[in-house]
């Protein structure tokens, strides 16, 4: 089992950590979520029996853990979290423009409601369909699609100026 757990960690921990970090906006809480997910798998090995998509299952566990963490926050913690929400969930950019965009993207994600943030993350960085997102988050596909549209509109409005500045090469020919 430890070997299986290590293999699962190597395969899925980056995704679980990225999801938890974008969802909680706190590196400490993201670590707690990641640890709790793998602790649960070690305690209950049968959890993964019969599971077709281990990644989706782990993300579902992570979502439940992250929601528990966010509910437990007190008012004081929330004030602290607003300051910590700038924790960048994205890798450093190759140049200052990319870096600035990723920091702005992290900040824009932090401003979204948690449920929209979760849907946006799963759609954009886990490439899940709305049906898969619905299964992960326990909502209907219609709700997932609706939340995604709201989230994307807000991200677009917030990031449009920066995006126009550093528009990637493959889009410049179409948009110019």
């Amino acid at each position, binding site marked *: 089992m430890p070997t299986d757990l290590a293999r699962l960690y190597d395969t899925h921990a980056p995704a679980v950590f*990225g999801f938890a*970090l974008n969802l909680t906006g706190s590196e400490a809480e993201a670590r707690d979520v990641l640890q709790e997910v793998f602790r649960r798998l070690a305690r209950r090995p049968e959890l993964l029996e019969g599971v077709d998509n281990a990644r989706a299952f782990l993300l579902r566990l992570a979502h439940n853990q992250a929601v528990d963490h966010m509910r437990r926050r007190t008012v004081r913690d929330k004030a602290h979290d607003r300051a910590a929400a700038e924790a960048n969930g994205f890798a450093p950019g190759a140049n200052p423009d990319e870096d600035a965009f990723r920091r702005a*993207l992290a900040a824009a994600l932090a401003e979204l409601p948690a449920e929209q943030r979760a849907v946006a993350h799963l759609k954009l960085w886990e490439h899940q369909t709305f049906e898969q997102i619905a299964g992960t988050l326990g909502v209907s596909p219609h709700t997932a699609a609706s939340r995604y549209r709201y989230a994307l509109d807000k991200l677009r409005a917030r990031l449009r100026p920066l995006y126009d500045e550093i528009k990637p090469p493959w889009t410049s020919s179409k948009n110019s």
Partner: protein
Amino acid sequence: MDEFEKFLRHQPLRPPPENWRAEILAAAAQAPVKRVSKWTAWLWPSPYAWGALAAVWVVIFSLNAASMPRRNENLARDPSPTPQEMMAFVSGWRQWERELFPQPATATAAPALPRPQAGSPGAFLYDRKRRPVLVS
């Protein structure tokens, strides 16, 4: 999917710090394995579905039990008749019997015979109080 979404998708996520791996796996390895009963293992894949099915059966049994008439209710619905009702029933029954099976005319229309005077023949058939004596 428009270009903006594609661009967002290309933003790589930050991986977890390298030193976490050993710590998290070590903490997970120390967690005691929870023994799962056969029932739990059997129900695990869809515990909510099984629970919902059990709840539906409970509801069906409850509705079935609630819709069955109870003995006490039957008794309360048909209480014992009062003596007056019984008398009315019996008299009605007799009336109906009389109408259905009328008595022979000789039995009903027999006139009372005059009692014999003392000393007359047949007076021995009456006692002192002038009541007829049955002769077997």
